[in-house]
């Protein structure tokens, strides 16, 4: 059934720079000197290590246990010795360090015993989810949402359409494009498995119209029940809400999930890794990464997770140059990296070496509305900026600041060069911090009440038995009388004893 496509509001026509790397075959990146695996490479609770420093691990062996429902296990990318479990810099805007497992490869790259499941169709969906979860598969599109959670949502409510998202709208990035061209069978098989897991009525694979080879590769293998669609190339067509609007015309409810309108979306790379997990039992230990921009030999690499970024860059001929900056991800949503020692994680899809953006002076906002025209979520960026700038966080929430997907279109077109996305990130993190502070305050008040109550209780207990002494404020005179009286009483008692035996001396 040919679905006619819809348009989404705003968006940008960017020149894609994809031709640099989209026709070069992806090569396998050799073993790096050290593998650094952060325990938290997904949205959710970090996993817990189950091995100790000094253990010898095999390739694919589970080295960290999932900790809670929204969490996934971690697997060793190669065989080697665990040399450290400690704090190392991880991909984060401020390069904070987080606990990581560091493995020193021994070069044998020996697989541990893996247990493939046979005919996936006969296996009931619930068991399929456990397999996917145990192989540590998250969304590889860039968000890093644990795949089994989405599948589980799929089982609980009726899934109308499963969309496999091969739309790479960010410039420079071609890792999904190469993956489809080289491993189209993995993708199609993986799609059928996910479809079986969520029992979706329709199934769609979406590709951008400037990826013709990928389209042909899929068209050959696609059976009749999977719909293959070419989506017009327009940034940010690849984002979940926009792609759903383009394909189905439905809008994901504001602040809600796609599942609420019966749609589940997975990335092409996730589908491929699901295929490998189910049929061959291989956990997610490597992925395609595009190395592009100002390097001699830009191309796609199949990289083991945990390889330091500098390693991949050196493989493509990169020499450090201070007016170049390294960006993890695309130019529109990527993260600036100053310390290239950080490892490649499950959500890294591209390493871009770009000329540093010249320092542009931020002018005041002239409310020209250019950002309103390009915002794909139909927000009002200039009002959000106005409230974020003046710390008016309730107003910012009233203008739906949490719906912003930080795609960067507004900052791209702003004539005053305002870093709008940074203002929105500031506002969002400030609101989250405010909520944490408030919870902390309530917690502190509760403890303070308990403290006061216990304090009063102690006082009450003290003052019951020694009314005067316990009461610190009673005036000194009352205390003196009490003491004199006590002394008199003791003297009398002593006096009585003395008068009995030596009555005479008592006079």
């Amino acid at each position, binding site marked *: 059934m040919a679905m006619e496509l819809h348009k989404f509001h705003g968006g940008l026509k960017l020149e894609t720079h994809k031709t640099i790397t989209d026709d070069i075959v992806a090569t396998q990146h050799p073993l790096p000197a050290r593998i650094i695996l952060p325990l938290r490479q997904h949205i959710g609770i970090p996993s817990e290590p189950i091995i100790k420093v000094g253990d010898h691990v095999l390739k694919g062996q589970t080295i960290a246990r999932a900790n809670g429902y929204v969490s996934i296990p971690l697997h060793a990318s190669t065989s080697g010795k665990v040399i450290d479990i400690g704090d190392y810099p991880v991909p984060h805007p401020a390069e904070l360090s987080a606990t990581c497992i560091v493995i020193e490869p021994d070069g044998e790259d020996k697989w541990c015993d893996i247990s493939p499941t046979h005919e996936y169709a006969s296996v009931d969906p619930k068991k399929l989810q456990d397999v996917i979860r145990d192989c540590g598969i998250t969304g590889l599109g860039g968000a890093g949402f644990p795949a089994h959670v989405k599948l589980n949502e799929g089982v609980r409510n009726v899934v109308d359409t499963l969309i496999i998202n091969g739309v790479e709208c960010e410039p420079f990035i071609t890792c999904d494009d190469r993956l489809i061209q080289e491993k189209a069978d993995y993708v199609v098989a993986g799609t059928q498995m996910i479809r079986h897991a969520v029992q979706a009525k329709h199934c769609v694979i979406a590709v951008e119209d400037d990826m013709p080879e990928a389209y042909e590769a899929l068209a050959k293998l696609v059976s009749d029940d999977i719909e293959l669609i070419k989506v017009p190339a327009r940034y940010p067509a690849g984002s979940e809400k926009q792609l759903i609007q383009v394909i189905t015309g439905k809008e994901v409810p504001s602040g809600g999930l796609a599942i609420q309108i019966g749609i589940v979306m997975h990335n092409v790379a996730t589908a491929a890794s699901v295929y490998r997990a189910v049929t061959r039992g291989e956990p997610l230990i490597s992925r395609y990464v595009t190395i592009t921009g100002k390097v001699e030999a830009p191309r796609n690499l199949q990289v083991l997770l945990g390889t330091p970024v500098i390693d991949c860059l050196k493989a493509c001929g990169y020499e450090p140059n201070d007016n170049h900056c390294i960006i993890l991800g695309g130019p529109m949503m990527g993260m600036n990296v100053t310390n290239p020692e950080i490892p490649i994680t499950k959500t890294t899809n591209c390493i871009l070496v770009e000329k540093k953006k010249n320092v542009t002076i931020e002018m005041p906002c*002239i409310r020209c509305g250019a950002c309103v025209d390009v915002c794909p979520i139909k927000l009002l960026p200039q009002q959000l900026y106005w409230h974020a700038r003046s710390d008016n966080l309730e107003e910012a929430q009233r203008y739906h600041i949490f719906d912003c997907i930080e795609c960067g279109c507004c*900052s791209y077109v702003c004539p005053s060069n305002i870093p709008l996305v940074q203002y929105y990130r500031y506002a969002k993190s400030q609101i989250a911090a405010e909520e944490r502070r408030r919870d902390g305050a309530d917690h502190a008040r509760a403890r303070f009440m308990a403290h006061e109550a216990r304090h009063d209780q102690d006082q009450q207990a003290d003052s019951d038995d020694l009314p005067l002494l316990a009461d610190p404020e009673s005036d000194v005179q009352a205390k003196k009388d009490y003491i004199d009286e006590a002394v008199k009483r003791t003297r009398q008692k002593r006096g009585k004893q003395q008068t009995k035996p030596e009555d005479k001396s008592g006079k």
Partner: protein
Amino acid sequence: MVNKLDIISSPHKHDGSTVSSVMLRVCLALVPGILCYLWFFGIGIVIQCMLSIGFALIIEALMLKLRHRSLRIYLHDGSAIVTALLFALMITPFSPWWISLTGVTFGLVFAKHLYGGLGYNPFNPAVTGYIFVLLCFPVLMNHWPLPTGLFNQSNNATYTLNKIFSSAVAIPSQSVDLSIDNTTVINDVNSLSGATPLTHMQTQIQSMEMISEIKTDSMYGNFGGKGWEWISFAFLLGGIGMIWMKIISWRIPVTVLGSLFLTSMVFNFYDADIYASPFFHLFSGGTMLCAFFIATDPVTASTTPRGRIIYGCIIGLTAYVIRVWGAFPDGIAFAVLIANSLVPLIDRYTRLKVLGES
């Protein structure tokens, strides 16, 4: 741990547009109008433009020094130049030099820098200055040249220069021999004072004349004032160019002109003798200038798409009301200022429906 301040946030590319390039393109769009003005009313307009731009830059520099902002960035953003140009186009080419000084100062100081400079002012500085001057010196503001061509003796350089710099208030009613090199004497009452077609139309209507008779007067061209219609047409071209260059959104000019056109058409059907034809309203006075350049000033106009439509209608309607029943001939300047004061209210209630909002 990277120092917090020098973390560069995510969009690492920019399409290269800057505020000064936007303002420059607005000035370019104004040029055809100014050329027409020059052609019909002599070089008076050019002198006025020079004057007001000069004053505007001086005041802008002074205010920036006072607010100890760096001059280099803010003086080049061109917003002062645009304000000055618009102001010069609204006042009469014959108005003395101190008119543009007071107008530009009031506009820039009170309507812009007091609120914090570019981007914070709710009122358009050019219009505020113009209205301040209009209210303070009404006589001088009704002192327009005649569309008799560039080289006609009453519009040539020496005459206008001495009028701007040396003349006290010229008494329009007397017929005074002004020809320095004793060419023909001008004695027609209107030739000196020269009312704009709008003012002339309004005064005649109030004295119960029929429109058909008024139109016979020499100053009326085919659908607007003789010179005025072409100037308005030039501004229309400039405006369409700006929309094409995506500097302004089409919503405000279309709604302003549309609502003005509709109301005047309705009243025209009702009684053609009292109410002028829609074309006359569109192509006379400052309508085109205001609709394309002043109402669409992004800082003071409404920003939400729906808000802009309401904003435009308010301007169109109020302009018509003031023109026909009010005391001021060209009410569009007042209409823009009134609409500016309603903008915060409009913006509050025309919030865009977010994607997926019920």
